[in-house]
């Protein structure tokens, strides 16, 4: 019903024509503002080898306000809580309308490579990450194997 802003159409077309390596974002058939996202775990991170599902929603005033993004796949990460909510500044107060779906997803992928336990969302995970990083990384790998790999 609602006409889709040209910007969203253009971003969607570009995502299809020039996909970002390691990231796929496909609009839902019945809602062009809702994207099914898959991000691959970055190399040399505890999430390597995992395929992480996320959902991304473009609110009505996008791009003036940020997309809403959430992990659907369970992930052991100090900046992602058990509901999949992500603590990332560009999704909150550092949002800029010059950012796009692709840059947001790249930032999320980068967050997997660089967990920041000093700005935690999942407190227990962040705590362990600070006091016993090797155990935290072991947990992250275990969760990746258990929840983010098909077999």
């Amino acid at each position, binding site marked *: *019903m*609602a*006409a889709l*802003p*040209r*910007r969203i159409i*253009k*971003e969607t077309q*570009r995502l299809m*024509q*020039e996909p970002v390596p390691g990231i796929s974002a496909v609009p839902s058939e019945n809602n062009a503002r809702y994207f099914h996202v898959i991000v691959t775990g970055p190399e040399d991170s505890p999430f390597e080898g995992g395929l992480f599902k996320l959902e991304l929603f473009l609110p*009505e*005033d996008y*791009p*003036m*306000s940020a997309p809403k993004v959430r992990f659907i796949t369970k992930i052991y990460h100090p900046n992602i809580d058990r509901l999949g909510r992500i603590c990332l500044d560009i999704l909150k107060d*550092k*949002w*800029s*309308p*010059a950012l*796009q779906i692709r840059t947001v997803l790249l930032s999320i992928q980068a967050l997997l490579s660089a967990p920041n336990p000093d700005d935690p969302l999942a407190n227990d995970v962040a705590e362990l990450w600070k006091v016993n990083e090797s155990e935290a990384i072991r947990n992250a790998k275990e969760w990746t194997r258990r929840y983010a790999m098909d077999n």
Partner: protein
Amino acid sequence: MDKDSQERDCAICLQKYHHPTRLPCGHIFCFLCVKGIAIQSKKCAMCRMEIPHDYFEHPDLIEKLAHDEITSEGDTEKYQWYYEGRNGWWKYDERSNMDLENTYSSGETECLLLLAGTIYCVDFHNMIQIRRSDPTKRRKVKRDIPTLPSKGIAGIKNVETSHTEVNTDSDENTVPNDNEETIQVNSPNLVAVNASTNTLTSSLSVDDLIDSLRQIDLHPDDSLSTDHEETLNSADT
């Protein structure tokens, strides 16, 4: 999509610059896109430099609106859509005009527009523009020949032949704050309708909303009229 054409596009709407406007930091966006960010973050979308609060009194338009441009779409076959400001009519920008005209010509009863980051619904029946997030914000619209006298295009004032300055007076349409959409709602009936439907808008589609606007009883109950008071007050500040 070649790189060059991407670089010529506005980083906010991802389309060719439309009335390009330069911010003090040097970054360029469409006039309406800058209005959108000035309402929201008040920072440049590229470098996050603050946009001066008086920026819209003297926007740095890269192509000044020539008087020609406003009247020369002389093609009498074409129609121009206008919206009402405080003391005159503004033309819609060319993109919105095209959307309105195409939607109107296809027989639809309304058209949704995204203007400066805000969604508006133009109701062709009543010839009004309603802000989706706040239906008390309304303007009259009209469809007419392109050569009528107007204040300018989408908040960019016409340049009088003798000066180059744009937007020298602080007209309500050029100021990127809430006032700009505050339209004087003359009919008390309309006010009552808005008050009683305000609380419903989030769960309704526009179609439902329009229907309920048409059907609604014009006597607001007390609790809702309080709500409405607040809406009006906040609009007036």
